[in-house]
């Protein structure tokens, strides 16, 4: 999926707020560091992308690694061929008994016609794009999305917010169906950072979510429970030939 970035809507209104001034706050920081003026670091920052921390490399079997590590986090992986995508999603929805859906599949060619064919089969597709906020998405039984990238290293899905993707799609419904193509899979987190290199913060999506498992808690006596606030189940449709 292409990255589409643009300027933020507006800076927060330039009202006066209580609190300290930037100058006196920073003066205390500099004093603690033992200097009068803010200076750029004289030594370079440590190199982050080193062999010792890199957990996956381009030459690895990324499809296999992604699948295995996604399963470890509690997500379920359904390997498919591109031609079977729509059929597989339909089958899963039937099995789940889902009726009402929120969908954000961007420009994924394999998912063209997905909404229409689901509609024809009698599913209700919520028009989230024309109602502001997240509220309308709370009624959905499942959210269907593609991903901006996926990480083999950890079995992670990267779901960003943009015009075609609400923040809520992968978060609010009790089930998340994610479409991941082989070509979406990057070896390591460092490869995703490299892709963002040079893009100023103001042009990044306002929300980038690295999803590594279904929503979980172990707060009550350490017992693992899925589906606290986010989806209880994440199904990954792993398109192996695209």
């Amino acid at each position, binding site marked *: 999926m292409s990255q589409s970035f643009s300027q*933020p*809507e507006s800076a*927060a209104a330039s*009202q006066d*707020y*209580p*609190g*300290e001034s*930037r100058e006196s706050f*920073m003066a205390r*920081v500099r*004093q*603690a*560091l*033992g200097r009068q003026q*803010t*200076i750029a*670091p004289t030594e370079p920052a*440590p190199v*982050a*992308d080193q062999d*010792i*921390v890199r*957990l996956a490399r381009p030459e690895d079997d990324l499809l296999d690694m992604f699948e295995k*590590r996604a399963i470890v*986090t509690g997500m379920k992986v359904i390997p498919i061929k591109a031609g079977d995508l729509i059929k597989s999603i339909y089958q899963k929805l039937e099995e789940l008994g889902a009726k009402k859906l929120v969908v954000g599949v961007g420009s994924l060619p394999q998912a063209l016609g997905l909404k229409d064919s689901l509609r024809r089969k009698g599913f209700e597709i919520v028009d*989230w*794009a024309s109602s*502001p*906020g*997240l*509220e309308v998405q*709370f009624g959905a039984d499942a959210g269907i999305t593609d991903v901006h990238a996926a990480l083999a290293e950890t079995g992670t899905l990267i779901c960003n*917010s943009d*015009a075609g993707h*609400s*923040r*809520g799609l992968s*978060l609010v419904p009790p089930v998340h169906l994610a479409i991941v193509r082989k070509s979406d899979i990057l070896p390591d*987190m*460092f490869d995703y*950072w490299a892709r963002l290199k040079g893009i*100023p*913060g103001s042009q*990044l*999506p*306002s*929300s980038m*979510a*690295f999803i*590594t*498992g279904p929503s*979980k808690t*172990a*707060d*009550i*006596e*350490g017992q693992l429970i899925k589906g*606290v*606030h986010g989806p209880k189940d994440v199904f990954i449709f792993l398109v192996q030939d695209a």
Partner: protein
Amino acid sequence: MTTASTQPGTPVDPLSFTPPSHHGEHLLDPQLPYDITARSTAASTNIQLQQFVANGTMSKDTARKQVMPAAFGEHVDDVRYLAGSIKQHALDHLDYYLEQFIERATAAGVKVHFAADSKQANAIYLDIAKKNNVKLCLKSKSMVTEETHLLPALEGIGVKTIETDLGEFILQLDNDAPSHLVAPMIHKDRTAVGRAFTRELGVPYTDVPEELTQIARNYLRAMYPKADMGISGGNFLVAETGSVVICTNEGNGRLCTSAPRIHVAFVGMEKMVPTLSHLGVLLKVLARSSTAQPLTCYTHIMTGPKRRHEHDGPEEMHVILLDNQRTQILREETREMLRCIRCGACLNACPVYRKIGGHAYGAVYSGPIGSLITPMLRGLDNYKDLPNASSLCGACYEACPVKINIPKYLVQLRADIVKSNLGKKADKWFFRTWAMTLKSSLLYRMGGWFQTRMFRLQAGNTISKGDAYSARGWLDQLPGPFKGWTDQRDMPTPPAKSFRQWWHEHEKNKNR
């Protein structure tokens, strides 16, 4: 309890639900100067608490020891060193990276605020809430809000504020306070949750964790679309992009920062990393050290409010940078302490934490790292027991993913206590006598002779009978100030012959 009048069987409507107005503040903010004795004694004799805390910490500690080498192989230490040096670099140049963060976050549409202390921080919150006529505020887990007592402050102006992290929600309902950085209700069991839910929410009693979770889910989901303001903490700030990063498992963090119209992130200034790549290294060690996950379920990187072409997200995003004595720690002598990424690994590894639990530390930050930063944040004279609440076994240092040399700094703080004359008079007298004895051969021998006889006499051993080394007994109670030592274990009596005696005889025999 405000809703105590509700009868079981008539569940409270989530939108008219009001949480109890106490938050167990006294647990994290006791009378100062704080004396650890009462709470640590109570905790160490509370079998149930011992069990909960031991179960919770030891499973995580074991899991961490497995997943770190599984991921990084023989390089675990090098990776910890790298993660530590990244945080250290960011702290060494915190002025530069803070300026960069402020500029880039502002360019992305964030309003950045500065708070010297708790009072200022809360004033900023109240002001944002008032300006926007905020009625309902949802909060994801944040330790700094505990530091500043934000919730009572918001309630004071009529803003209903609900904790959304499951553990924190339960603690809020039960007038309790978190006792672990990552597992806030490690000290409670399921029946306490069931009772609190019945009492405060009016739901029928259950102690099945799945059902309790479902009840909390339903309550909080009804509130998300109605909330005006979301509060989050921040695990990291990224200078390069002006982003705030939160690492959560439940999904409430993403909801609190996405559903309400206003998002206010409240972050200690030390959470800085230079770039997204550096963030990557820390993410790789954070969840593994904390809960043995490769990453938390959700790593949410937020850079400014909703863009024009985006569909949802907050219209306003504020970041409050908090000092609250952090610049005191930032001085060179103690800077390393600020590397902490709040993973909780040192708590899980610590034999003292396991024995006394989090509340015994009498502060927001507990465990080994709490014993360092609490005295720094709130005065060494107020918390002089904490640096001593450690056996200096070094398990914390070994567990720390950013290699904070916790034992070294505990010793440094102990030295500060002595230097600034904050120690107990009896301690001073004892250590002086000790030093004098060790410096004098005569006094040392006399002391040894005396101690051997006293102890053996008390244990019913005699000096002459049996083998000098194996004929030993156990003392189950030492006298006076040494009583504490034998409260939990017996003391072996010294052998009848001292090492010096043995050596003399050995040398004599050799020359024969």
